[in-house]
């Protein structure tokens, strides 16, 4: 069995909703069935085989051979299996994903990992704004699982995030961890303005000194034994966070304007 591969016939003019192309949605479908799946593209509804050349037969292993930033909702509500995207992905990558792995070898659009509750999302590139955040109207962002971004993340990464781990190996934009409810965000690079803005609970791990606003309070340097456990749990992860080994950090509590049970741990390396 070879991976089920979708190759775009041409760069589409309109955005395409790829939510039906996940392992659980395609389970038990024949090649003909898969080709006949209707996809929304702009204001048109088109057959999958009109947009993609489709090959392979293993629906648990899906590959988008030439992704582009117009492919929205890849891996939405996915429960198991694996999706690999060569090239970029559009908005809402891994939207409400419950399980399984997504590996993106390119850049993701906005709202990647929004509402995700389980599994891995590994972005080998940059993520757009609102990584792991809630979509407008929702009150909780990502609620479980693991996101690794090897590049940079845009603004509002982890906005209203509820649970799970987001590890950004590059920089994060403005308002990182804003209104965060719980969970863990790590950023190896720099953060923009107002990190932890309105943060309620949760942990933000930073490795470059952030510019903090007034309602985040410096609690001094601490040696925190739990960091050793956390580092151990990261040991098998792909990427740079596997090498985390510090247990000493400067702790900031906040945002005091919103309950103030969150913490920002700044490591000095």
């Amino acid at each position, binding site marked *: 069995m070879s991976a089920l591969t979708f190759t775009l016939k041409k760069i589409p003019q309109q955005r395409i909703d790829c939510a039906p192309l996940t392992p659980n949605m395609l389970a038990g479908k024949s090649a003909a069935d898969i080709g006949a799946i209707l996809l929304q593209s702009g204001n048109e509804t088109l057959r999958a085989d009109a947009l993609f050349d489709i090959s392979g037969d293993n629906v648990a292993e899906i590959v988008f051979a030439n992704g582009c930033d117009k492919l929205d909702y890849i891996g939405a509500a996915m429960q198991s299996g694996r999706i690999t995207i060569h090239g970029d992905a559009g908005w809402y990558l891994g939207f409400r994903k419950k399980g399984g792995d997504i590996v993106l070898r390119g850049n993701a659009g906005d709202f990647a990992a929004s509402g995700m509750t389980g599994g891995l999302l590994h972005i080998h590139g940059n993520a757009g704004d609102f990584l792991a955040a809630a979509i*407008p*109207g*929702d*009150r909780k962002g990502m609620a479980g699982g693991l996101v690794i971004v090897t590049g940079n993340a845009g603004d509002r990464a982890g906005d209203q995030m509820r649970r799970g781990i987001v590890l950004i190996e590059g920089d994060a934009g403005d308002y990182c961890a804003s209104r965060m409810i719980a969970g863990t965000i790590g950023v190896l690079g720099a953060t923009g303005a107002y990190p932890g803005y309105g943060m309620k609970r949760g942990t933000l791990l930073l490795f470059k000194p952030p510019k903090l606003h007034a309602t985040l309070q410096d609690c001094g340097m601490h040696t925190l034994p739990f960091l050793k456990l956390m580092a151990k749990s990261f040991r098998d992860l792909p990427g740079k966070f596997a090498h985390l080994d510090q247990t000493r950090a400067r702790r900031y509590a906040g945002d005091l304007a919103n309950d103030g049970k969150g913490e920002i741990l700044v490591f000095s390396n």
Partner: protein
Amino acid sequence: MLTKLSGGTVYDPAHGINGKVMDIYIRDGRIVERPRDDERIDHEYKLGGKVVMAGAIDMHTHIGGGKVNIARSMLPEDHRHDPAAHSGLCRAGCGHAVPSTLTAGYRYAEMGYTAGFEPAVLPMNARQAHLEMGDTPMIDKGGYAMLGSDDLFLRMLAAKKDQNAINDYVAWTIAASQGMGIKVVNAGGINAFKFNQRFLDLDEKNSHYGITPREVLKTLSRAVYELGVPHPLHVHGNNLGVPGNVETTLNSMAGVEGYPMHLTHIQFHSYGVEGDRKFSSGAARIAEAINKNKNISADVGQILFGQTVTVSGDQMSQFRNAELGSPRKAVCMDIECDAGCGVVPFKYKDQNFVNALQWAIGLEIFLLVDDPWRIFLTTDHPNGAPFTSYPHLIKLLMDKSFRNDVFATLNADAQTMSTLASIDREYSLYEIAIMTRAGAARLVGLHDRGHLGAGAAADITVYTDDADREKMFAKPDYVFKDGQLVVRDGGIVKVVWGATHTVRPEFDRSIEKEIKTYFDKYHTIKMEHMKVGDDELEDGGRSRVIVQECKGRREKTA
């Protein structure tokens, strides 16, 4: 243009026709007598074996006004999970519990409904409610203006103004807000909430005005009757949802002293305090009282299980319920000097003791009230369930074994508290036609709707008779609106815009002097700006205003 509907089995309770095979003729949007033999029939629909009824009328459904819009903006998830794509004819929309205006209109028509009445039009927000209803296609609309908790009315009562002055104010309110009638929500209670009272029983005084709900109900029911408004005072009682409120409801019935009164969503007002959990069914007592008091009518406000949202002017109750919201969010607000508003999303669960018993209480009331002309089929959309569940509700009423099968799956403790399984009654098609057509039209005061006699507007629904009543009522074969075919096989084939129904009782214009002074002193806009004009309802000719007849001033007869 002459259209013939031939050979259908007709149910027209207004004329006592119960399943008679007959022809119906339509000319220029009206039902006409059988034409002369030499007249040419332009179009004939052969309806042999089909069931023909007037278009259904929902006499209590929240489809317009501020609270519906708040519910929409509060529930993005309701919209995301239920999108309705555009078609060649219909525009796109969304929403399960609170659909967008266009989608609401389409869905009503697709179920054979041709009219719906918004029961809580705050006079101050009447313009917005009418604009929203004006944007609801397919069906006729109308609203009941809300009084009873507004400061001017309570001031007048506190100042012991005579009934004539009150009558003039009530009539002025109907005219200014283009209403079909008057509704009272938690009589005086919404106002009392503003003075920090959290409960208000029938004989409890508003701490500021010293007025009791009993006085409000009595004065307003008398005013509506004396003005000759066909729709009796539409009452959302006090103590909604509070165990033991069956006493309040029974006292309210007695409190109007024989004047006509319509008790709305009475299921929510029929709770006793028996049993281990101090929550029990008061349905039998309520039904007995309705059977006895011929001046009382009621609609049920049946709950059905699933996600919905409760929208109400009853800010006092909604403030109590806010904690129960699911998903947990709520809005409670004052609205000028008029009243209030509360919106709480709610999920009724079949394994929840209270919800399961509420379900049973609603059905008990349906089945124990003898006279279908005085009990009406509603879910208080969207408070008990969205209106799209009406076919399911009709099946529950018409099919005893189906009803008992569902009942047997509910919370076991609730089952032991209900007599539902012992009730054998099944509604007939004729009785359903009374509840949803003839009776509703008569209650609301629609003289040319809800029946199939000559002169009536040709709002007609044709169903295929099916033992599965849910299937039958969910998908009519044909729906005619004012003589035009608008739905075929449960799908829209033509979009029309319906009309707005109003009444215009006579009154002494000099009352405006007092109202104007009050507006100038307390309100944010001028009195003249608050009035809704016909041109606004007609919307450039897309819709029209139908003024239904008032009987003229009358004195108490009994």
